[in-house]
């Protein structure tokens, strides 16, 4: 299977430079100046002047500092003095058009003073440099334009600030710090904050994959220069959720973002690819072909990285979107004077949790509380997710993923080869008997080669008019998301060649219980439309999560002699089993394995054909629910809150009938204690009494009557059953 299609070709073979300034004789401003000069910032700016035709004074420079800030002068954010010094350097060299930029993040829903200007102010930005040069801090959620990305991109349809898009020079100025989930978070994570949606955790970590978003963003709008403020860094297992300052007395600067990130990681003493975000970017974009690194690459002394237990447990915990969204702010150490919580319950919960688990490196109890707590939430999330996969599929969210390959990088010949390869496999089934209904299957190199067919008594013309065979895979059972890009259409505008990424729930669904992965496959596809036959052929070229070795096949819709429709699906599939299942010697239980395979295929394709029929009936067949692309924005749903959880519990309590509540009170209270219980509670919470009746007695009578009726009916039913058993009906 070819797996290199995802790589984006670098535009040039220019020599990229990274400079590490850590001279103990220099102050932090001196480190900054040395780093940016060493990395060639001024050459970059000169080149941009030349490329854009602008004078230095008019060259628009947008700096994105890191605003991961919950305490005054926190090392999780970029030091404002360094940023202002950089602006002064620009002015000193004739570049008078530099601004800072940021957007708000998910914490705006929990904490006060998280808007762009307040945050900048509380971070220590004075909006004028020490040399009296005024500068602006822009909100990149203003003046938005569409992101210009190729079809299939994860950012397709997203918006971005015109200022960021049109900047002549984009500079990322991140803070050097560890991260609970990704081990370290420097400029790639910092840059995601240029995207405008406020609920960033939901949109750019849960709805979309952070690695996909960051990679696509820096590919589409590359930064021209990257700086890492490592003068005072933030280290330790708690990552950005707690203060862990350490003097590292370093500034790293570079002309290539990924190389700079890689150097920053090496200085922390971790494998750069340990961060899923940087790993994805390195896989898809790669390091420069020619590069120079100036300075000391020795890891920082006394640096503490995130303990692997912590990062592993956080990653698992964050697979439960609802819980992780709520937990992240509750676990965040916050200076309440700067950023008071909106909600008193959240404030109290945060105070408790931070006290218990705030310093995992210093306190073994806090460490194990972190790990065990995360594991507990992760287990709950896994149980919930497994339940949803097996029994409540519409509670699952759709998966939004980029295509993952450049579909136009494949030649027409490569596409057109797919049908021949698929058809050639079909002959393997020639003499294989049907095992159940119209399913036939056999093994080929550990893969299952199968064919399943159904006659659907619907006129062929009607069927194909309603069911677009080019979307055949999307109508299959348990399709939870993906993306298809048409490469070539026929004269009637129908797709003929296309590339498609499909994600399905783990198959069979019960594998979800044992950490079974979703099936994630990217395919080249060919569609044929003949008078009596429509067909879709596919060949898998990439499985991003390694869930499939083979998933090649075809869907065929044929007109029968009676004018009806025969649907046939043929394929070769080999999916990766969860580790637990690999411990079992399946060959020793060949008949059981055959039974399980047969059942899995029978169920899957019975449901797939039912979906085909339902599509023809005009029904929606896709499982799951859509993410809200506007959550947290005007017109979108509001993010959940602890107050909302309280309201939900109140609503649940509200559906209980008054009798139930009264009866429960009586049982718990050991009898009627006051006349008030006889009143009627209205919707506004007022109790109404009727002086003309004896409320207590009336209520008691109502409850006991209901119970008596229930018991009497039940007894009558039992008597009738017993009588029927004694003299059964004919």
């Amino acid at each position, binding site marked *: 299977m070819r797996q290199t299609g995802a790589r984006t070709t670098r535009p040039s073979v220019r020599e990229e430079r990274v400079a590490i300034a850590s001279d103990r004789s220099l102050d932090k401003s001196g480190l900054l100046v040395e780093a940016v000069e060493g990395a060639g910032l001024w050459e970059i700016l000169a080149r941009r002047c030349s490329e854009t035709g602008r004078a230095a004074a008019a060259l628009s420079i947008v700096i994105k500092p890191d605003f991961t800030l919950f305490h005054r002068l926190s090392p999780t954010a970029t030091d404002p003095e360094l940023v202002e010094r950089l602006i002064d350097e620009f002015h000193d060299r004739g570049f008078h058009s530099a601004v800072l930029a940021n957007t708000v993040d998910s914490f705006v829903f929990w904490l006060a003073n998280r808007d762009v200007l307040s945050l900048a102010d509380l971070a220590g930005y004075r909006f004028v440099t020490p040399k009296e040069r005024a500068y602006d801090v822009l909100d990149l959620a203003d003046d938005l334009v569409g992101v210009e990305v190729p079809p299939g991109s994860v950012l397709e349809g997203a918006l971005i600030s015109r200022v960021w898009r049109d900047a002549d020079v984009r500079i990322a100025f991140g803070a050097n710090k560890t991260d609970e989930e990704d081990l370290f978070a420097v400029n790639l994570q910092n840059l995601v904050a240029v995207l405008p949606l406020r609920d960033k955790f939901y949109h750019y970590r849960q709805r979309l994959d952070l690695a996909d978003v960051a990679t696509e963003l820096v590919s589409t709008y590359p930064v021209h220069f990257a700086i890492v403020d490592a003068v005072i860094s933030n280290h330790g297992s708690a990552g950005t959720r707690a203060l862990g300052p350490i003097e590292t007395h370093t500034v790293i600067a570079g002309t290539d973002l990924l190389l700079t990130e890689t150097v920053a990681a090496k200085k922390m003493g971790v494998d750069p690819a340990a961060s899923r975000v940087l790993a994805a970017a390195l896989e898809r974009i790669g390091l420069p072909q020619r590069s120079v690194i100036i300075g000391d690459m020795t890891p920082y002394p006394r640096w503490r990285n995130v303990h692997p237990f912590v990062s592993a447990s956080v990653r698992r915990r964050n697979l439960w979107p609802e819980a992780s969204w709520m937990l992240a702010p509750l676990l965040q150490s916050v200076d309440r004077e700067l950023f008071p919580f909106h909600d008193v319950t959240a404030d109290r919960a945060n105070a408790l949790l931070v006290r218990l688990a705030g310093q995992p490196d210093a306190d073994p109890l806090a460490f194990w509380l972190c790990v065990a707590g995360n594991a507990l939430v992760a287990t709950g999330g896994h149980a919930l997710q497994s339940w949803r996969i097996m029994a409540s599929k519409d509670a699952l969210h759709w998966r939004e993923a980029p295509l993952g390959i450049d579909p136009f990088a494949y030649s027409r010949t490569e596409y057109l080869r797919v049908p021949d390869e698929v058809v050639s496999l079909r002959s393997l089934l020639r003499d294989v008997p049907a095992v159940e209904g119209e399913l036939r299957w056999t093994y080929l190199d550990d893969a299952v080669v199968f064919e399943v067919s159904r006659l659907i*008594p619907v006129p062929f013309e009607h069927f194909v008019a309603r069911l677009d065979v080019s979307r055949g895979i999307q109508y299959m059972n348990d399709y939870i998301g993906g993306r298809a890009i048409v490469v070539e259409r026929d004269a009637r505008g129908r797709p003929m060649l296309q590339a498609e990424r499909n994600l399905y729930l783990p198959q069979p669904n019960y594998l979800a219980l044992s950490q079974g992965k979703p099936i994630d496959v990217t395919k080249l596809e060919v569609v044929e439309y003949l008078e009596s036959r429509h067909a879709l052929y596919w060949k898998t070229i990439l499985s991003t999560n390694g869930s499939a070795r083979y998933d090649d096949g075809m869907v065929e819709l044929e007109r029968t002699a009676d004018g009806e429709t025969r649907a046939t699906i043929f394929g070769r599939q080999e999916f990766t089993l969860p580790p637990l299942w690999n411990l079992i010697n399946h060959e020793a239980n060949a008949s059981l394995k055959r039974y399980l395979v047969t059942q899995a295929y029978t169920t899957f394709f019975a449901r797939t054909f039912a979906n085909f029929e339902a599509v023809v009936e005009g029904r929606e067949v896709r499982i799951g629910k859509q993410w809200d692309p506007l959550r947290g924005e005007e017109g979108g749903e509001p993010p959940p809150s602890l107050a909302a959880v309280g309201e939900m519990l109140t609503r649940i309590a509200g559906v209980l009938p008054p009798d139930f509540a009264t009866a429960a009170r009586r049982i718990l209270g050991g009898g009627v204690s006051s006349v008030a219980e006889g009143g009627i509670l209205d919707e506004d919470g007022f109790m109404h009494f009727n002086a003309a009746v004896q409320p207590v007695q009336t209520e008691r009578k109502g409850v006991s009557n209901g119970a008596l009726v229930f018991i009497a009916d039940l007894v009558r039913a039992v008597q009738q059953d017993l009588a029927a058993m004694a003299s059964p009906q004919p």
Partner: protein
Amino acid sequence: MKLLVTGGSGLIGSNVVREAVALGYDVRALLRPTSSAAAIEGIAAERFVGDVLDIGSLHVAAANCDAIIHTAAIFAYGGFTGAQLHDVAVIGTRNVIDAAAAAGVRRVVVTSSSVVCGSSTDPVPRDETCRADNGEKSPYVIAKIEQEGAAFAHGLERSVEVMACCPTLTIGGYDHRLSPSNAVIVMFLRDVLRLTYPGGCNIASVSDVARGHLLLLERGSSGLRYIVGGENLTWTDLHRRIAALCGVSGPYFATGRTGAYLAAAANEMIGLVARRAPLTTRVQARMVGRYYWYSHARAAALGYAPRSGAQALAEAIAWLVTSPHISRELRATLTLSRDVYRARLT
């Protein structure tokens, strides 16, 4: 002939509207302000907003009409008090007859129910001469009995010819609110245990029931009730047929009255928590073990000739599987038989 149909958005009412329009009647469908007209969408019938409990609106609705088919009713075995059921059934029917008399309408067909003829402990069909025992009278049955009595008495009083049409378990399409009769099919398909139970029912296609109403309007005798039914089946046979038509297995187990009662109680509890009407209730569970089998000989003498139970089921399923009453997830488990597809084409 100008025909007023009350309850024009309901299962029977909307199908009466459809059949009447197909037969050339000039139809005015009475709909409550809150009712959806989806069931008669695309049908060339006049929509008139009113309510059978609003006599003023009925007077206007009945003006210039030659006949009335009064189908408006609450058909529910739970969720309504006896008083609510009584008001719509009795007061509503009296209002309709008053409006008919005022507008000079001579003939009114009132939709009653076969349950007014009661049920048996043995598999013996009952006819229009039978009465319900006191022991089997649920609030719904009481309301229908009172409705019928009030209709005949008030018709005599106001010199309006009244015929009572008594449908059996009526299944079929355009049932946008899911009536308890179609819910029998949905409930069986949703039930993972695929339970069946003793006793039986008579199932009729809603199209036949609609035609039966029109037949009574044209040929029925005033002051008589007519059972319009279809085929008598045991519940087990009915469930087997549903399973065969939908390509699912079952029924697996036969539960007795006790199991049905407890299941219905659980269903009511779930409905209460989930804020939705339960698919089955304890009132219905009390009907388990009895035979709601009927003869439609009296209507047959007028020319009533219903289709088979199998055909009625196939048509009902053909519609239900395209409706929201069958969830996407449930639809994915069904392998519809050729009979269902054939029914869809008809």
